[in-house]
């Protein structure tokens, strides 16, 4: 058996396992989301198809496949066709580097985090191709907003992972997760979220993740009320489904990374529970985060585009830098209680001053409207 056959075999195995798991989660989440939203809005949600509406995703899938795939007449055929493929591909690629359990990382690349962000950044290009390909003003506008939003949040996203990478000293996710092993007095896990800078970084990471995946509070690109479905308006049928799939996979990837970086990956919360297999902990934490996604979608209203931009550049970025500083302070104060208190102090102080500075009431000049000539 030539060695390349073995490598090819292992790669295929990995891919199929990955797809299998995440497709099922996708299906599950899409229906669960609608049920939870409904529950929040004091209604049932889909319960017609199958017990408690569990087969709803199958129905949606079939619907999507049957629907006629309409392509605008003078649209740029090639670009229009390639856009969904590229989006889905990048989303799936990012999932490949996250460690789901003890030595259960599909592709253990040395610069795993870097690979994640490198591939993550190509989604903008795909979104643009979608917007450009459909040759429709709304889709173009939606693509532009999406890209603007994603580009400006990419920076906080990367900067918040920086403290973790600095503290651990390696870019590979496995090293990060193993660094979060161990417990204080058996009950307090060494997760980074327990440290003040870790918690701040986790919150910032999570918010940026929301924006990256165009989720509710920041779903301006496909804000239904304004520009129909943003860059996805001209897609129908299976292509729309792939966009839909890509969005969810993006969500899985971001929260998976959040888990590995801050919530200790596949470590058990308390030492005693170590016997439970590692991937269970990973998927529990993942589902917790996904619940928060849905929860947030249900509660928060849509924000304006300029608020998103200001929030990114004037709050997120500085706070990201403070997390790095806090991490540094924490590290040099010996990573113990003293370090903990010091970094807390740093974050608290800067947070206070920053928020006071950004008093929105008097800070911004009255909005000027510019009507199209």
């Amino acid at each position, binding site marked *: 058996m030539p060695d390349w056959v073995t490598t090819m075999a292992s790669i295929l195995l990995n891919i199929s396992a990955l797809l299998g798991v995440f497709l099922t989660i996708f299906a599950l989440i899409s229906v669960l989301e609608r049920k939870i939203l409904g529950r929040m809005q004091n209604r049932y949600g889909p319960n017609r198809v199958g017990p408690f509406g569990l087969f709803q995703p199958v129905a949606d899938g079939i619907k999507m496949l049957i629907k006629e795939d309409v392509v605008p007449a003078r649209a740029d055929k090639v*670009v229009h066709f*390639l856009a969904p493929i590229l989006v889905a591909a990048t989303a799936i690629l990012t999932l490949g580097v996250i460690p789901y359990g003890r030595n259960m990382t599909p592709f253990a690349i040395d610069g795993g985090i*870097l690979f994640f962000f*490198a591939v993550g*950044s*190509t989604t*903008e*290009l795909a979104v643009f191709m979608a917007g450009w390909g459909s040759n429709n003003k709304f889709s*173009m506008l939606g693509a532009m907003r999406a890209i603007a939003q994603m580009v400006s949040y990419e920076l906080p996203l990367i900067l918040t992972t920086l403290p973790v990478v600095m503290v651990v000293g390696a870019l590979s996710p496995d090293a990060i997760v193993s660094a979060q092993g161990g417990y204080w007095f058996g009950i307090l896990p060494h997760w980074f979220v327990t440290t003040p800078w870790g918690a701040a970084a986790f919150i910032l990471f999570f918010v940026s993740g929301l924006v990256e995946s165009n989720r509710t509070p920041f779903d301006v690109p496909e804000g239904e009320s304004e520009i129909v479905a943003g860059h996805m308006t001209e897609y129908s049928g299976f292509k729309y489904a792939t966009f839909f799939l890509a969005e969810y996979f993006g969500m899985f990837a971001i929260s998976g990374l959040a888990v590995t970086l801050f919530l200790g990956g596949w470590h058990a919360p308390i030492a005693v529970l170590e016997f439970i297999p590692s991937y269970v902990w990973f998927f529990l934490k993942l589902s917790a985060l996904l619940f928060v996604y849905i929860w947030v979608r249900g509660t928060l209203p849509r924000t304006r585009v300029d608020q998103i931009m200001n929030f990114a550049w004037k709050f997120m970025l500085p706070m990201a830098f403070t997390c790095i500083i806090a991490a540094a302070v924490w590290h040099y104060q010996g990573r113990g209680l003293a370090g903990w208190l010091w970094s807390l102090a740093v974050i608290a102080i800067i947070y206070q001053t920053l928020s006071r500075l950004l008093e929105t009431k008097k800070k911004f000049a009255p909005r000027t409207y510019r009507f199209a000539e």
Partner: protein
Amino acid sequence: MNSVAFLAIAIITLSGALAAATLPKLIHAALSLVIVFVGVAAYFFLLGAEFVGLVQIFVYIGAVAVLIVFTILLTRRDSVNDRGVNWGGVIVALAVFGGLLWIILNTTSLALPAPQTEPLTVKQIGESLMTNYVWPLQCVGLVLTVALIGALILVMEEKRER
């Protein structure tokens, strides 16, 4: 060295490059450029410079490609009359390619196989960056900021003009 991969990547990159150079529609050329970047990144992976490949993807595809595409978007109005091809340039390019090819083929010392080493880890790169390449790093940082500010000013002028 996995020559199959080498060949595959070579085909992809060169075809992408040719497409980028010759495709009539601008957007397609830009996108084929993305393919070229991916091919080059693949080469870097192939050559064991993993970190560089990632950086390549990150920078070129993540930023430059988007920039190019955006510029195409902003300068779309008169796409009609820029068809023609300037044959002089083609001849010169071919001549240069011929010259280079002739040089490479004639130098005997080049045909040496690739020595076996394990790929370069990010830690080694980080160390060298922070030790004997600190000064270039700072300069690059400075150049980047200045370039971006400059680009911003160039472009911003439109807002004031109205």
